[in-house]
């Protein structure tokens, strides 16, 4: 008998964390993540989660506690949003550089200034280059399932994983979620085997200064320099694509739900027009595709599930035959365009794909994005292509200035 509960994204995330049995949780509450931090502290207090909940004075410390606990061999969890994630920025690099398999949730929220408590993805997009794996969830089922996959992935490649889901849109919306059973999760997720354990019994120095050159240690062994260590982080992210795909396959086999490995596709087989995005906006786009199909437009959707490492080969297969591509993004690389749009263009460079890419910056600071608006955007793009205008474009959806 499957256990289905109608729950919010934050509840799904909390239950996912509980199933993965971390030993240390450190989180500082921030809207819209707060309910997640509060629920986890309640689990710990009530003995449902046998972990230490470390109360901290800010997000920088929350991640530092996780880094420390992970370095002494504990499975750890933290979560944040928006400016909280920005405050962690330095430690994000530190976690990845130390190759610690930390899993955190980023409940996506716009960043200040000006203040917004509402959803967009500028927070996690801004942390793109910190060396973390980033996964974006399209609904609450995917949140709990991705959490379980994330620990398996992180602990296999020794790279931290950020599970991103849209604040309020998912974090505060209830929907039916099947809760995996603990025995199956334990089978899917083997116990954490640290690559390094700092312990007084066997003293080690970790992350001392590495020099530009390689250097022999006191035992005379030639050791990696800074650049070799950084190369290894990049190599690990490159290798993680296969690990992510395999984790998804094994998960689908074990639990019967396939969320896609690096990305997922919706009616793309014969699609002339492909809409794409990350997180809930991609789910919204599937409704837009249904509407377009009903009107005779062959539309499909590619949901980018993993943004880092970028699914560079997967996107070529998924988008290859499209005549036009529309990228909806809840964030932007200021001074250029949406980060996903740039990455897609780069992936298509040198391939046969000559489809124009229209980039829509949408839903910043919680501005509502409706399927009919995505439909209109798709039609505009298709009309441009049919009129022979093949240039790339960037537009702001539902923005009334300029």
């Amino acid at each position, binding site marked *: 008998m499957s256990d289905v509960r*109608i729950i919010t994204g934050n509840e799904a995330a909390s239950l996912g964390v509980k199933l993965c049995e971390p030993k240390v949780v450190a989180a500082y509450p921030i809207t819209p993540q707060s309910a997640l931090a509060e629920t986890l502290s309640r689990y710990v207090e009530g003995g449902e989660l046998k972990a230490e909940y470390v109360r901290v004075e800010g997000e920088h410390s929350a991640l530092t506690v996780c880094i420390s606990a992970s370095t002494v061999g504990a499975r750890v969890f933290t979560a944040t949003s928006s400016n909280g994630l920005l405050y962690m920025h330095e430690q994000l690099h530190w976690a990845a550089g130390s190759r610690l398999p930390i899993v955190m949730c980023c409940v996506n929220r716009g960043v200040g200034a000006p203040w917004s408590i*509402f959803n967009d993805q500028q927070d996690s997009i801004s942390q793109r280059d910190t060396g973390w794996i980033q996964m974006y969830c399209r*609904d609450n089922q995917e949140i709990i399932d991705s959490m379980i996959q994330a620990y398996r992935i992180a602990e296999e490649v020794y790279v931290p994983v950020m599970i991103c889901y849209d604040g309020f849109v998912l974090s*505060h919306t209830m929907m*039916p979620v099947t809760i995996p059973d603990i025995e199956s999760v334990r089978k899917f997720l083997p116990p954490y085997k640290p690559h390094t354990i700092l312990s007084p019994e066997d003293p080690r120095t970790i992350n001392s200064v590495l020099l530009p050159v390689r250097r022999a240690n006191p035992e005379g062994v030639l050791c990696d320099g800074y650049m070799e260590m950084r190369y290894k982080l990049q190599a690990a992210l490159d290798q993680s694509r296969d690990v992510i795909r395999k984790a998804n396959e094994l998960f689908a086999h074990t639990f019967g739900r396939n969320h896609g490995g690096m990305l997922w596709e919706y009616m793309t087989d014969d699609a002339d027009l492909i809409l794409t995005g990350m997180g809930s906006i991609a789910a919204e786009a599937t409704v837009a595709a249904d509407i377009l199909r009903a009107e005779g437009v062959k539309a499909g959707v590619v949901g980018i599930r993993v943004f880092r490492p970028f699914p560079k080969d997967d996107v070529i297969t998924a988008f290859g035959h499209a005549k036009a591509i529309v990228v909806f993004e809840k964030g932007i690389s200021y001074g250029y365009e949406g980060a996903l749009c740039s990455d897609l263009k780069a992936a298509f460079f040198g391939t046969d794909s000559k489809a124009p890419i229209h980039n829509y910056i949408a839903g910043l600071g*919680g501005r509502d994005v409706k399927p009919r608006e995505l439909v209109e955007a798709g039609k505009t793009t298709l009309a441009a292509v049919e009129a022979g205008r093949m240039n790339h474009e960037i537009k702001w959806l539902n923005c009334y200035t300029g």
Partner: protein
Amino acid sequence: MQEVLWHGRGGQGVVLAAQILGEAAYIQGFKGITSAPTFGPERRGAPVAASTRISDEPIRTFSQIEAADVAVVLDATLLTMIDILGRLKERGMIIVNTPLAPDQIGIEGCFDVASVDASGIAREQRLTVGGFPIVNTPLLGAFAKATGLVSITNIERGLKKKMPADRAIANCAAIRTAFENTIVKRHDSKTGTSDKK
């Protein structure tokens, strides 16, 4: 897909009502359910809304409801304050907490109107918090009567998932009373009561 908007004031329980309806609809057999508050800070006394979406298929849209199939109004003073009818589909159903009959409320336009004295029922059942009547649960009874989307039994089952058994007793009684006392007036009375699923 049926889209339901709950209009009330902060503290009246629109969010809980939206959730209970979601639970009830799932028990009824609908596969697609979402319920959500108005996103943002919570403010006691201010006009607030919550939503429930009900569908045979899993729901893939999480955007705000533009035009609901059903609007439930927990506080009738909101009718003149916010544009509730502007967010209701033509031929949609509006359910109002009022001692007045549907045709006395002054709702113009092509809508089905249902009324129930949820406040009065709550007071009878001694369902009050800080002197204010609890009207969200009786309105769930009115919802079952007016829309026929979910059965009264499943509303009660849904409610029991969201509150302890001792509190459920009086709430279930209020739901039943409201169900029996809800008056429905279709916009075109000749179409009878079967124009909704």
